[in-house]
């Protein structure tokens, strides 16, 4: 810094502007990564298609509108009001399916949840969104199984099984909140969903799901972040 220029706050020699900028940018990066509990910036291996992202965000917004607290309804005061600085950080997560094994009448989908959601995370809600592509308007029974690794991690056990009736093409939802909570509680990150129809039915899943019909799980989580209590 020019001779005799000093930092007004601490009296030390002021940093040269370029150095100060580098220091501040490094500080900004470190601050954001630490608040997101990320050791380093993520390397994106598969960016989500725009179509799938827009569809998912639209469906989440529609879901929020449906469950929004209308004036006549009581607000759940048992949930501590989330004021900044209260040490609770909420996340909304969109996890898009990765294709697993499949047969002519069944398919497996994998959903990976972020490693940052550790045991101290509470899943407020998690909904599986599936798009049925049904060639002809007939009712089809579909079995939806939620699988998770057993304690050895080598085999998959059925966490829950649900029968769904598919009448026509379109979106269907299934609550998977408890399954995701159990997964995270066990330190696992992968939820496997198996969809199966009876042998003689043609499969109502799009073999090559189009982008904007890709299955996804929309989850809301709340992590207790260690927070300094400022005494005033």
């Amino acid at each position: 810094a020019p001779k005799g220029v000093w930092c007004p706050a601490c009296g030390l020699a002021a940093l040269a502007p370029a150095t100060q900028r580098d220091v501040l940018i490094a500080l900004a990066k470190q601050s954001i990564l630490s608040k997101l509990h990320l050791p380093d910036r993520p390397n994106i291996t598969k960016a989500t298609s725009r179509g799938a992202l827009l569809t998912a965000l639209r469906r989440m917004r529609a879901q929020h509108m449906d469950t929004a607290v209308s004036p006549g309804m009581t607000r759940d005061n048992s949930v501590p009001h989330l004021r900044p600085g209260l040490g609770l950080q909420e996340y909304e997560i969109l996890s898009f399916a990765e294709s697993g094994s499949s047969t002519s009448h069944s398919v497996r989908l994998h959903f990976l949840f972020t490693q940052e959601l550790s045991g101290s995370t509470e899943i407020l809600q998690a909904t599986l969104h599936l798009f049925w592509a049904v060639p002809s308007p007939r009712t089809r029974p579909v079995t939806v199984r939620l699988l998770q690794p057993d304690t050895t991690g080598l085999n998959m056990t059925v966490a829950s099984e649900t029968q769904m009736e598919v009448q026509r093409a379109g979106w269907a939802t299934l609550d998977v909140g408890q399954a995701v909570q159990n997964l995270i509680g066990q330190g696992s990150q992968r939820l496997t969903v198996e969809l199966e129809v009876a042998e003689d039915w043609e499969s109502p899943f799009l073999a090559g799901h189009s982008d904007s019909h890709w299955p996804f799980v929309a989850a809301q989580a709340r992590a207790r972040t260690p927070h300094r209590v400022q005494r005033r």
Partner: protein
Amino acid sequence: GIDCSGDSQMCCRKEFFVDFKEIGWEDWIIQPEGYHMNYCAGLCPLHMAGIPGLAASFHTAVLNLIKANHADAAMDSCCVPTQRRPLSLLYYDRESNIVKTDIPDMIVDACGCT
């Protein structure tokens, strides 16, 4: 609070914008385009202590005179954030999930002397 301008030495808020494209983070942070990492800097001599900025009311002005006349306890105070707001991020996590979160108290809106 006040924003730093010119060569003011008094406690004020310095604006500093980090453009995510400039630091190569625009591929994993979908929104926003950058982070206003404003910060507080400047002097807080005794007679400035305890006011949120320089917008002093009459009461504060009197208080300042009292403080300034008792400069024996020559204790400066600190220039700190007095108003902050969350930083909302929409980003890809390490499993390429898309996450939206609000990080509390990340953006400084105003500074003042303790």
